[in-house]
């Protein structure tokens, strides 16, 4: 709006391309880009140059990774092109850009799990289970919801949707390895002050687990998953199979 502000934003192109800005500056500059075609061209060109700073240091990944990542990808739903109204390279604000991704992908994942649960309970009890709870919906619909996915080292994928505002997260997983009857998956909040138990993860079907609602989350916490005795532990007794977070993006 003000020219001084515009000028100030203009000079930010280099820092923006180098990711040398704060989240707030990134958001403001991205908003500026939607109104400034010249800036978009400059950012696109500078990005080609910056990319080469990275590709110049290519390292060969260890061989086992490829199979694992490709397997994870095939178990991960893709963002459909229809929703792609804000293009990545157009850089509408990061948050605005991520929101549709979160909502669609997380909603799809939760729906998939919920269908699994529903089917499971329907099988077991001849009735339909409630699909989605108010607390799960509160996290998924939070304006600051962030979704992260990560492979579980023993197999499967974990998905965590975090809302900083709500101090909550929703944990779901699929493809987890089946455990012996005496063992269960336990979720942890892992932060600078140590680990806190955040609930047991219910595996409804071989393929789907959760959603588990995690409360009392701080912005410094990561979410971890371990295998524990079925009664649960107060502290992890095994190494985390996956760690996701912190949800502050």
């Amino acid at each position, binding site marked *: 709006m003000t020219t001084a502000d515009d000028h100030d934003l203009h*000079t930010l*192109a*280099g*820092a923006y*391309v*180098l*990711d*040398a*800005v704060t989240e707030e500056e990134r958001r403001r500059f991205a908003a500026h880009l939607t109104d400034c075609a010249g800036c*978009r061209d400059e950012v*696109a*060109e*500078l*990005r*080609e*140059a*910056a*990319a*080469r*700073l*990275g*590709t*110049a*240091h*290519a*390292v*060969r*990944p*260890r061989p086992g*990774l490829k199979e*694992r*990542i*490709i397997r994870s*990808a*095939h178990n*991960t*739903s*893709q*963002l459909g092109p229809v929703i*792609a109204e804000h*293009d*990545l*390279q*157009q850089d509408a604000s990061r948050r605005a850009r991520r929101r549709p*991704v979160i909502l669609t*992908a997380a909603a799809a994942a939760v729906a998939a799990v919920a269908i699994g649960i529903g089917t499971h309970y329907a099988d077991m009890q001849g009735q339909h289970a409630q699909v989605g709870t108010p607390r799960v919906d509160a996290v998924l619909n939070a304006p600051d919801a962030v979704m*992260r*996915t*990560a*492979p579980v*080292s023993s197999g499967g994928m974990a998905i965590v949707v975090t809302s900083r505002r709500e101090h909550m997260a929703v944990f779901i997983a699929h493809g987890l390895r089946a455990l012996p009857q005496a063992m269960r998956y336990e979720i942890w909040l892992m932060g*600078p002050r*140590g680990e806190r138990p955040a609930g047991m993860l219910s595996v409804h079907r071989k393929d789907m687990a959760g959603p588990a609602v995690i409360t009392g989350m701080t912005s*410094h916490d990561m979410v*971890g998953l371990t295998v524990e005795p079925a009664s649960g532990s107060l502290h*992890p007794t095994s*190494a*985390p199979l996956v760690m996701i977070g912190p949800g*502050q*993006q």
Partner: protein
Amino acid sequence: MSEGRWHRPDGDAPLPGSGRRAVPGLDDLLSAVARGDERAYDAVYDLTSGWVLGVARKVIRDPSLAEEVMQEVLLDVWRLASRFDPSKGSGQSWVMTLAHRRAVDRVRSERSHATRELRAARADIDYDDVTEAVEASLEAERVQRCLSSLTRLQRECVNMAYYGGYTYAEVAELLGVPSGTVKTRMRDGLIRLRDCLGVP
């Protein structure tokens, strides 16, 4: 369908050369990935995983964290492929933008939170077969040569931001230079780099 259709470099990791010319087909491959083409994703992995791991290593340093970030980025490439628009930049730049951002986010959260004990908990993951081989020595030389054509301050600003993951304000503080100067040096430095590299 033959694998050659996707320009697979002999099933091996890529040897990135000079920008877009070195990665024929990446843009097309990404468009195919957006349609759920698993074979195309396989080829995209071969072309880009070395770059992604490379930048993650440079920024994050810790090999196990870098590997985690690489996995996240490669999954992003799969999930978000429909966001790639070849009219707005190369596939290489798109992938590297995702990769660098994730790496920087990670190194900043590592810096701000004491997560050492968590890292120790993960130490039992097996990393002994990490191959350190740096690919593209030609490309590394070319980029190094272009970096050395920058002024010293431009180079320091670009290096600290891109490889160090520092914000321009942090760079200003570390170098004892006004932040406005750092901002303009980052931009001027990248412009000079772009001209030197002959970016399309």
